[in-house]
């Protein structure tokens, strides 16, 4: 959208009070929801009937699926890029941990930071290639890069042990906290996921995050204002790679091994499904998506053998009928709609000259 485009969203130009967002009733009482959700998450291991089934299969898996999907949603919501490489980056981090633990026989104290570093650096490299493109091209290129990694992982004997993967990667007993115990590991994963969520919220609110949103809404204007659009995109992708890597580290200890399946196309689609189904207006929605997917995964088999078909149907139905209810992906869809379609959709970035760094009207909506 250049400044020269016709102001199709002219109905939205009414100025909102800059800097002091109007709090809706919902926003004022949102903390209650948070207390309930966190309380439920904390009580979860003690209220379920079969902890040995529920904690790993639903609890921990939802947490890492959600964390990885959160990195996708962040990138989509604040940068306007839909990346299908997030699962791949998480998988690379998982391989980093696996290589350190299994092949090099190092301690987890070293393996975990190395894993996260490897995943983040990989994200930076992917960004160098992919940040040159956007929209549908970006989607295709991140998907293709993911498949390069998959083919490498399933063929390279020396690094990834090909199809057999790297195992075992036991959960560590750190003395004070024994992650080998399921519920302790669950709390660890929960803490990591919550910290990632808070970090995402924090980064989005910094001047860096605001610049990203400016670039998302109008790269031309931000570029004219002296922002290096490409570098900001690369930095944002590197940040989300860091978040995805943390999810990948939780995943590798949850699975106790790492094999090419974690970077396969279907795992990538899982993350997309989580992001699309779960998104109900905030970054935290991905955990709802994670729970829906893991429940489908575990219980749909009782009803039908075609669990993938069911997942795909749910995915399509959500996309067809509830696009505005989706978190990041929905926003991207709406944005793509509003740039092309005649009728203005949900309020997306009106073309009014808003100075960067100051809350623009579209941010208000995104605080929801």
């Amino acid at each position, binding site marked *: 959208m250049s400044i020269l485009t016709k102001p199709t969203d002219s109905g939205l130009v009414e100025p909102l009070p800059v800097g002091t967002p109007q709090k809706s009733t919902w926003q004022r009482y949102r903390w209650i929801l948070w207390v309930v959700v966190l309380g439920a998450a904390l009580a979860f291991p003690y209220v379920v009937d079969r902890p040995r089934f529920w904690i790993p299969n639903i609890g921990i898996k939802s947490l890492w699926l959600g964390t990885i999907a959160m990195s996708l949603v962040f990138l989509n919501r604040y940068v306007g890029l839909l990346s299908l490489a997030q699962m791949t980056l998480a998988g690379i981090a998982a391989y980093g941990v696996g290589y350190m633990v299994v092949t090099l026989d190092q301690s987890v104290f070293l393996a975990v930071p190395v894993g996260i570093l490897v995943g983040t650096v990989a994200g930076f490299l992917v960004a160098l290639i992919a940040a040159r493109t956007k929209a549908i091209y970006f*989607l*295709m290129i991140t*998907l293709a890069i993911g498949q390069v990694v998959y083919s490498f992982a399933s063929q390279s004997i020396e690094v990834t042990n090909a199809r057999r993967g790297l195992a075992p990667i036991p959960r560590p007993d750190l003395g004070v906290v024994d992650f080998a115990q399921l519920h302790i590991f669950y709390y660890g994963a929960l803490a990591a996921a919550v910290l990632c969520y808070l970090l995402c919220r924090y980064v989005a609110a910094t001047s860096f995050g605001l610049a990203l949103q400016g670039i998302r809404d109008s790269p031309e204007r931000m570029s004219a204002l002296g922002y290096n659009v490409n570098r900001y995109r690369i930095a944002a992708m590197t940040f989300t790679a860091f978040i995805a890597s943390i999810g990948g580290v939780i995943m590798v200890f949850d699975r106790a091994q790492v094999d090419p399946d974690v970077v396969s196309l279907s795992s990538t689609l899982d993350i997309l499904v989580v992001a699309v189904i779960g998104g109900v207006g905030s970054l935290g929605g991905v955990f709802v998506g994670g729970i829906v997917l893991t429940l489908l995964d575990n219980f749909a088999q009782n009803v039908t053998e075609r669990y993938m*078909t069911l997942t795909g149907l749910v*995915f399509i139905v959500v*996309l067809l009928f509830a696009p505005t209810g989706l978190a990041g992906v929905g926003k991207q869809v709406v944005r793509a709609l509003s740039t092309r379609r005649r009728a203005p959709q949900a309020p997306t970035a009106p073309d009014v000259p808003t100075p960067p760094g100051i809350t623009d009207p579209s941010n208000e909506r995104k605080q929801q």
Partner: protein
Amino acid sequence: MDQFLLIALNGLTLGAVYFLVASGLTLIFGLMRVITMAHGTSYLLGGYLGYVVARETGNWFLGALGGAVAVGILGLLIHQLLIRRFQDDDMRVALITLGVSLIGTDLMLATFGGTATQVPLPPELQIGLELPGIGQYPLIRLLILAVSIAVGVGLWLFVNRTRFGSIVRAGVDDSQMTSATGINVRVVFALIFVLGSALAGFAGVVGGTLFPLLPGQDGTYLLFSLVVVIVGGMGSIPGAAIGAALVGLISQFSLVFAPTYSLVLTFALMVVVLAFRPQGILGRRTATA
């Protein structure tokens, strides 16, 4: 030298199959500006259906026709039910068709099982041809190369030289104006989508004759056709031909000289092209590239 020529010819015939798949994708994208992620599913489904028809009737050509027509009809359904409403929203089309491919993968695994199948070839075509410098070479591979070239030339003429092609191009540039001249743009787009899908189905039968059909190939061929159109330039049929030839040659040569990294090298080609020409070798630079 013999080996070099043999690998090159293998690469070109492999590229011919890639071109058949990717030409449908690039046709749909070039004219409708949407990407269908269910394209690999169309390929594999076409292959399986062609296999069933050819096995039942004993006629390869009926199989090819059946695969193409059935997948084309399915493409019409997908277009009418899922894509038409979101014609202007490439992102949503990509995601919806990804969902379709998820379902397709699962249902094909359920229907056709996990074992490899191959479309039966009439015995009169199962012969070799004596080629100078190479020796015996399967006739069918050469035929497929010829068919692929014919399809490519035909498509290019169709889009650039026929009245229908110019209607389609006009519809892309300004669909309102085109419909104001009395042309039903929706029908035109639906036809293009059907044609693109049918090409993928046909490619599936052709590919399924040369190589075994397996679950998971839907993903593989989707990715290869994505790479081909990215390398060649989105929407360009000559570009897809160049891209397919490059991808086919690289994957065959690396299969001989560096087998472990064959796929990695193929994708490295894409990375290199993107670094120098983000719009692809023959792609037009657009606002989105």
